[in-house]
């Protein structure tokens, strides 16, 4: 019958309610990092509808601590276009204390010797784009290369 749409009892997928914009709003306005933990234990700070590891949809949202250690980094002398006035800066991959890994950037790391893999860092809210990290006070920086 025209104009009538059947309704189906679809399973509720909680993560489907979230948008990429909310992640960015979280960084800049709410001062929190959104994270999701899957039933399989996978932790991600990337938008999605189901767990990329196990495929299940029961992703639970929580606020990430923003604390962790440097898994890998690079000091970029040639910047991305939104960071053209910030070079050199570090692009970093951070292993979070609660599990999972997140990418971010560190404007205060301007040379390879300013940071090392394994250094402890924490997230700082910023009006600038992206997820910004700072080194913890007293964190070692052993020039590795």
């Amino acid at each position, binding site marked *: 019958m025209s104009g009538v749409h059947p309704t189906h009892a679809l399973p509720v997928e909680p993560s489907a309610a979230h948008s990429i914009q909310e992640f960015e709003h979280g960084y800049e306005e709410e001062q929190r990092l959104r994270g999701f933990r899957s039933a399989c234990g996978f932790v991600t700070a990337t938008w999605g509808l189901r767990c990329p590891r196990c495929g299940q949809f029961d992703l639970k949202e929580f606020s990430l601590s923003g604390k962790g250690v440097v898994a*890998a980094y690079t000091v970029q002398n*040639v910047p991305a276009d939104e960071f053209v006035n910030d070079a050199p800066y570090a692009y970093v991959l951070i292993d979070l204390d609660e599990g999972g*890994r997140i990418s*971010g950037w560190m404007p205060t790391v301007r040379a390879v010797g300013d940071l090392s893999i394994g250094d402890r860092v924490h997230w700082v809210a910023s009006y600038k784009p992206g997820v910004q990290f700072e080194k913890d006070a007293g964190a070692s920086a052993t020039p590795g290369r």
Partner: protein
Amino acid sequence: MTREAWVLGAASNRFGKMKESGREAASRVALEAIQMAGVEPKDIGYTFVANAFGIAERQAHVGPLINTALGIPEVPSCTIESACSSSSAALHEAFVHVAGGFHDAALVVGVEKLSHLDTLTATSYFAIGADYPFESHNGATFPGLYATIADAHMNRYGTQTEQLGSVAVKNHLNASLNPHAHFQRPITMDTYLNSPVIASPLRLYDCCPFSDGAAALVVVAAEKYPNPRTEPLVIRASARAGSIADMHDRPELTGLPASQRASQLAFQQAHVERGQVDFMEVHDCFTIAELVALEDMGFFPRGGAGKATEEGLTARDGKLPVNPSGGLKAKGHPVSATGASQVVEIFEQFNGMAGARAVPKTNIALAHNVGATGSSASVHIFGRR
């Protein structure tokens, strides 16, 4: 239904800076590949185009323009986009159509033109191939993303700067013998070591250039072309795989799971052992990418490809020649032409057209092509009739 499929014609222009537009270059190499194959243009059943950044030329939907220029406007076409693996994805689609019996001949054309953009704009176009909100928006460029792979690889396996440099020196030497190559001169290790750091630990000579270029392939059903005029490449495997898109969400930073999966699938399809591969073209957008590719596909143990390269095993006259064309690193990397151009190199090697860069043996060859930081990967294996 599957049937044997061949690459019967293959052509490329010289990579670098093109004066003409992408559609003109694509049409010219397509016609060259068709004529080389001895196929009538009207026999092409489908045209698969790769042109990821066509919008940079204010031109999308380039397939019908190419087909019209070739005098076959009625032939259907579509554009396949898989970042830097776009034309190997297009080859895969052509293979599926021909081996599956939908068409007896298909055209694959990859083309890119970015040289009219400044470096910052071109870098930004490349960044669109990553996860823009969750990687690029955190400051990552493509050199930066691969630099974190290099950083993790060096930290875990002790890979040395000079080992990365040995990839660059080898590939520039090979490119110096390739008339299609963007860079035509060899470099020394000193030149490499003295080049500026772009994204630590990667230097200028660790990075592929922004290149314009076009490459085309003609894929046919073997049963329909009993008397080929060229030595065809028998497509023994055409495999693609994906992985978690964001590098930071993958458990391992020193390898690309999509390359691992695609190569496993390809070796299963081809019934070929790694030791049977005579030479290969691999995705070396950065020097570290060549080392990681060789390890991902199981040719060397984890952390072993750097030493093998340094010892000359992957040189043109080595035990396992890698990137005799010069690779993306020195032949150049016109994004959507790259995957097809790898097959052009294999075709020329099989047909005695490689001149001074000819490798010693050409019975089994492999082409490995990656999209972005490995969220997509293609592996093709070719043999002789």
